[in-house]
């Protein structure tokens, strides 16, 4: 960067705000032009100081940080907004993405990450913290497509197999080292997942899918 990127830090936590400024001071390519400690002062400061990048805490008290961000995105399209927050919650992340916020980083990121984020958004790219939780479910049977379809657990598949081989509840309980009550609960869940209510249908399912 030829000129330094102008940064405005908006965070109500005094210690963190000062710390961030101190963290960024040694960096040559950025310059902190201002600090804001209250959400309502942000638009005004943006107008006055004209930063390139706004580091915005969306969990400031008495302010809806997202509303401020939305307002600024409309009014000052050139401004790059990086949300800086303690909260790693899916909902916040999704809301920010939807709104078109340029970056989202967790406060406990080191200065490397912050610099990285600033550089990325200045290059007109989006930067979302890699530490953010991914929206995936860890599925043990990722390769078994019909099990994924019915969401059957390993235990439940075992039980379906035994039902297919005409085991009684008591026999299954013995074999699997479970109580009869637990076996019955598993069978209820299986019925609910497969949408059946007769034991005969379960046997049929077992046979059809090669589980018996």
């Amino acid at each position, binding site marked *: 960067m030829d000129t330094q990127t102008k940064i405005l830090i908006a965070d109500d*936590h005094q*210690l*963190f705000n000062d*710390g*961030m400024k*101190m*963290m960024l001071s*040694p960096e040559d390519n950025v310059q902190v032009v201002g600090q804001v400690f209250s959400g309502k002062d942000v638009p005004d400061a943006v107008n006055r100081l004209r930063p390139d990048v706004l580091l915005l805490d969306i*969990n400031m008290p008495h302010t809806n940080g997202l509303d401020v961000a939305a307002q600024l995105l409309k009014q000052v399209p050139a401004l790059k907004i990086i949300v800086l927050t*303690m*909260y*790693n*919650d*899916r*909902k*916040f992340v999704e809301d920010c993405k939807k709104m078109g916020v340029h970056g989202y980083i*967790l*406060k*406990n*990121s*080191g*200065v*490397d990450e912050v610099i990285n984020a600033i550089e990325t958004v200045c290059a007109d790219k989006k930067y979302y913290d890699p530490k953010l*939780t*991914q*929206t*995936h*479910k*860890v*599925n*043990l049977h990722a390769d078994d497509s019909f099990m994924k379809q019915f*969401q059957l*657990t*390993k*235990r439940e598949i075992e039980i379906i197999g035994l039902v297919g081989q005409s085991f009684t509840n008591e026999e299954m309980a013995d074999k*699997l*080292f*479970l*109580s009869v*009550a*637990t076996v019955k*609960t598993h069978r*209820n*869940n299986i019925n*609910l*997942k497969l949408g059946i209510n007769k034991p005969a249908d379960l046997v049929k399912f077992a046979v059809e899918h090669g589980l018996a």
Partner: protein
Amino acid sequence: MRHPVVILLLFIVSLSGVEAQQTYRVTPAKRYVLDGFISYFEDTTTRLSIQQITRLHQQGRFKPLPSSLLNQGYTASNHWIHLRLEANTSQPVFLALDNPRINELWFYQLTENRLVRRVLTGDAQPFDSRAFPSRNWLFPIPLTATTPTDLFIMVAKRHEVLGVRVSLWGNDAFEQHDRNDYLFWGFLTGFSLLILLINTIAFVATKDRTYFWFICLILAIAFHISGQSGLGFQYLWPNSPAFNRLDPQLLSGWLIMLTQLQFMQQFIGQKAGQSRAYYAVNGFKYGLTLLLVLNVVLRIVDVFPRHHFQWTFNATLALILVSIGLAFWSIFERIRQGEKVVIFYTSTFSIQLVGYLLVFFINLAFTRGKEPLFQFDSYMLIVINLLFDLLVLTSGILFFWFQKYQRQNRLLLTALHQSEQAQSQRIIDALEIERNRMAEDLYDDVGAMLSTAIGYVSSTLRKPDVRERFPMLSEARSLLDRAVENLRTVSHNLMPKNFAQLGLAKSLAETVDKIQHSSPVQFEYVIVGQERRFDAATEVQVFRIASELINDIIKNSTATQATLQLVFNHQTLSLITEDDSPRTPVYNNLTSKVDFVQGTLAIDTSPTGVTTIIEIPYQ
């Protein structure tokens, strides 16, 4: 009441050739059947003297009476009966006339046409005008062996139904009969008082109006019986013969109908909004009360001397029919619901109804001057009904009251329990708010400080020579990172952000996701069925229960794989965790959390791992 026939002596003595009546020869015996030995004469003028009557008798103008029952129906005349008695030995006998309500009764005892004794009495005279203190008309007659005795008795009931039975008793037999009679009445009175006492105590204790109206009903029936039997006049109003003119035995019947209906309404709980019969019954009650007052006033002022009794009597019969009809209507409205109270009342009422109907028909027969089908006084049926009422209805009332009491107790306990629950709920809500605040403070404040420290450290570590000279600083940085992560987990577990909006299922998904990053355990999270929301407190508790289960798997087990299932069944939510680490799980306060949401907990440990199943009912 018929007794075995005693040997009769036929002895025809005629003072004049025309006399056809026989003389009754008295031998020492118990009770004498006088059928065929009585003659009678109706004096329509009501002005004939005893001399004129005896003359008429000598002229043979008296007619024989086929039985010992004089039954004239409605009449305003003076009715004279004649009986001639003769004995072998001197002995006293008692002549009895069984109708306590004869208005005027004149008794003449003649021997050889000379007046020996005269008693002028009737229920229009004070009680002590009687020859013998008894509820019925009793005349002690000392017979001599030498001469026969002629008895002339005039009975009159102005414009009322006249029916009187004449009987003769041996002295000893009479005394025994009299004693037994009064013993029975004494027992009945005592028993009634006892039951009344029980009911009064119950009324005072429970303030339940059913008891009050039952007491009124019993008193009305007792009043009726005392009027009919003559005991009322003997003991209750002996010096007020004018009271007898008000026909207490009839009007007490009206009171019985009134109190019976009122009692029924209370007992089966007939209420305005739920019953159409209610209005009819109320109308009848008010109408009857007005009629009663009117009746008494008319009688006192004596507006209709000739017809008053007849109209009252007919009205009584009609009112009985109406009140029975209303009672059945009230019962049939409710019988379909099979309430025990109604069934009980129906049975007792039907049994009593048989009694009342018999009374109805007997009285009807009397008014026509006919012999009734049953040769007993109608009020005996009332007595039986009274005993029945006393025993059965009292038991019924007590039983049903007790049931009501138990039911109320249960309701109170439920209300108390709910109030306690509400109280605990408030405490828990307060704690939740506190926890929430703590979580935010903790996370925001401490988290921010830790992040600041991370910032400083990372900033310092940007310089390569610092990284070399101070390797511990990198360690410090990772430690700080872990501290923030731990803090995040703790805070999330205390009160996940946006929990209310995301709901239980999605919040748990977030939790599992977060854990995946920091734990070697492979979690599978499955949601089955249509998600149903609980109230806020319950959802948070279920979340905490799930956190507890997950926590144990992560911290205290050697599991490599685990599943967490949230199954929305028809009636319950099942929370199921399974893992492959055989152990005894260590839970912190799990049972009390499960209790709070009224759920059930089943922990199934086996050599292959642990399965925990929690069922939570929907509200």
